């Protein structure tokens, strides 16, 4: 699969962290993201807050390297950058218990989950999240052993070197182990799959010509520039 993702394999194709190309994101898993929705979670079209993890897929055409230029579709003024910790699965994870869940993680990396801003999460078009290049990741996979506690990481996002968001994985509704338990109850994750823990709200926005940089304790920094599409 990664052969089709081109140079992506050069950066990550090092066992045991070879990525499979399957990347899952988690919506409204940060307390700020749920809080931003306010009372609307109990109103139509949602009618209730989410019960199971709200997942989505970043398909292989979205995968991109650190330093890649992300294309802003013509007529879209801004994009959102969802700064997340991504867990890289190390061994087949099916119905794992919360106490053992992190044993199934090979390591962690930074995921920039790029979206066309959309306010309603009922049935959004995949073109908001699945455009080419909309999922830069990197710069490396940091081994699990080098991350003392994935639930105690600070995520800082800069736009053109100005700090625009500081978020903590301590504020996740489902912390890393719990999320793995709830997800693998119904879907098996394979080595190299990435499960992103979810971004804080409001997500920083970027315009054409700007550069985002995400820094996470111990995971390094991921920078990408944004340019409007030439029609």
């Amino acid at each position, binding site marked *: 699969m990664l052969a*089709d993702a081109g140079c992506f394999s050069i950066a990550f194709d090092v066992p045991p962290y070879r990525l499979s190309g399957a990347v899952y994101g988690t919506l409204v898993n940060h307390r700020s993201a749920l809080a931003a929705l306010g009372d609307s979670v109990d109103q139509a079209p949602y009618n209730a807050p989410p019960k199971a993890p709200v997942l989505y897929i970043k398909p292989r055409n979205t995968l991109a390297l650190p330093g890649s230029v992300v294309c802003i579709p013509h007529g879209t003024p801004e994009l959102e950058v969802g700064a997340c910790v991504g867990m890289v699965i190390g061994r087949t994870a099916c119905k794992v218990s919360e106490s053992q869940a992190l044993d199934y993680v090979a390591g962690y990396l930074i995921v920039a989950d790029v979206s066309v801003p959309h306010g309603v999460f009922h049935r959004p078009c995949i073109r908001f999240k699945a455009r080419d290049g909309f999922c830069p990741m990197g710069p490396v996979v940091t081994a699990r052993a080098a991350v003392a506690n994935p639930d105690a990481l600070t995520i800082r996002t800069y736009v053109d070197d100005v700090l625009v968001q500081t978020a903590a994985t301590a504020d996740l509704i489902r912390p890393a182990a719990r999320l793995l338990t709830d997800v693998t109850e119904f879907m098996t994750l394979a080595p190299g799959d990435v499960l992103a823990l979810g971004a804080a709200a409001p997500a920083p926005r970027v315009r054409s010509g700007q550069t985002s940089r995400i820094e996470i304790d111990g995971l390094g920094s991921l920078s990408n520039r944004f340019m409007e599409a030439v029609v």
Partner: protein
Amino acid sequence: MMRARVAYAGAIHEATPAGETAAADDSVRLADGRVVAAADVVWLPPFNVGTVIALGLNYADHAKELAFNAQEEPLVFLKGPGSLLGHRGVTRRPAGVKFMHYECELAVIIGRPAKQVARDQALTHVAGYCIANDYAIRDYLENWYRPNLRVKNRDGGTVLGPWFVDAADVADPGNLALKTSVNGKLTQQGNTRDLIFDIPYLIEYLSSFMTLSPGDVILTGTPEGVVNVMPGDVVACEIDGLGRLVNTIAADAEFGR
């Protein structure tokens, strides 16, 4: 040409129908010449599967509805590689759920990269077709990023096969009859001519924002006629010229739950 990927006697093989008709599919011929019973091989998804793109609500019963719906954008969702399963596989039904159903769909397999492809060129990017059974468990439907992965992306929830059929061997993918039977009883019937968004449109639409690559597959949606299935039920999806895709529903106990 119809090709399957099967596991047999310690290796994975390309296989072709050994009988006069693929519909019989009681034996297969391996590329190395051996002919073996269909029941003695493990059927894998018949191609190297990339991104799985699925359509919701893409069949209309009446031309009037079709005209109305054609004004809207397709309802598209994605499925992951962990959900893939081949012919004659087993899909788990969790205890306690009320409504688990199959969805017989025409699967369109991309053969060469497609980026901003116009409708009239769309079919030149198609390598072939197969049958898909896109399971759902409606009990888990919530109103967040519908249809959510707990409904649609379960292990064993994307059944593909038995054969990969070359595009050249499918005269008109826009006029194929589909049907599903449960334990031999016909439960679902339709025809791809009733697709609201047809295959050329879907390729034009999808490739307008995402580059499609070889192995990416579009599950084009299912017609009416989905019914609840229970452990032990044998679900067979058939499409004209593509064969018959069989799947069995199993209870938690078979999976150690």
